[in-house]
């Protein structure tokens, strides 16, 4: 292993960079990721996942309800677990709430690390756990009527990947 040189700005501030937000308005992921990357000088890699509201058959809109006393603490607790599990320099986790149209970004998770395995796995881990950690309920509007989206089996198998 080679030893690492940390640029002065990082050496002076070894606290990992954490940016966790709930937004009730449309956002542009690029406006978050650029500053996030620049806030982590000396990184080896940044992995970013952006989820958008899909153009599912006949879906006109999607609404996300959350319970504020649980959502943000849940996202911070998930960030704590990601920082404990992976060697990260920074973590950005942004989630939309409220009403969205197909094509709009709904979630953006970005992890900066010295090594790419940590960055990629941290994003994968956060995405798999975000729904169960942050208590979002979704309903979609089809033909003018709202329908709640039920839990899926896939969510459980996603979480099982990280056990043991």
């Amino acid at each position, binding site marked *: 292993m080679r030893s690492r040189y940390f640029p002065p700005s990082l050496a002076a501030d070894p606290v990992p960079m954490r940016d966790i937000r709930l937004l009730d308005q449309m956002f542009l992921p690029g406006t978050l990721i650029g500053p996030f990357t620049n806030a982590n000088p000396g990184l080896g890699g940044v992995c970013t996942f952006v989820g958008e509201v899909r153009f599912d058959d006949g879906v006109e809109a999607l609404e996300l309800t959350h319970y504020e006393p649980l959502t943000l*603490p849940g996202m911070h607790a998930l960030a704590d677990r990601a920082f404990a599990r992976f060697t990260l320099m920074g973590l950005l986790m942004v989630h939309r709430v409220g009403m969205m149209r197909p094509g709009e970004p709904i979630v953006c998770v970005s992890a900066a690390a010295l090594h790419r395995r940590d960055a990629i796995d941290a994003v994968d881990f956060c995405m798999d756990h975000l729904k169960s950690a*942050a208590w979002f309920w979704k309903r979609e509007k089809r033909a003018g009527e709202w329908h709640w989206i039920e839990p899926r089996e896939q969510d459980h198998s996603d979480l099982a990947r990280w056990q043991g």
Partner: protein
Amino acid sequence: MIRVVYLGKLADIAGKPESQFGASDGELDWPDLVEVLRNHVNPAISEAVEDSRTRVAVNGELLADKTYLVAKHGDEVALLPPVSGG
């Protein structure tokens, strides 16, 4: 008064986003809550909160076992159905 908040589709089942209940002795436990929901809201919401997948939080703290609920005057009780997939 104790504030009860219905999340996700529980709000549809209750027909409202929240209710306020008084407790004669100042405390509301789990059997009290199930009964007050059945009698003062509707039987469907009472059944829905008894679903094993419905979780309960008091003042933002999730209960490990909702049947141990003890809500006092001024508390906020949130009824949380399973989160959506997709």
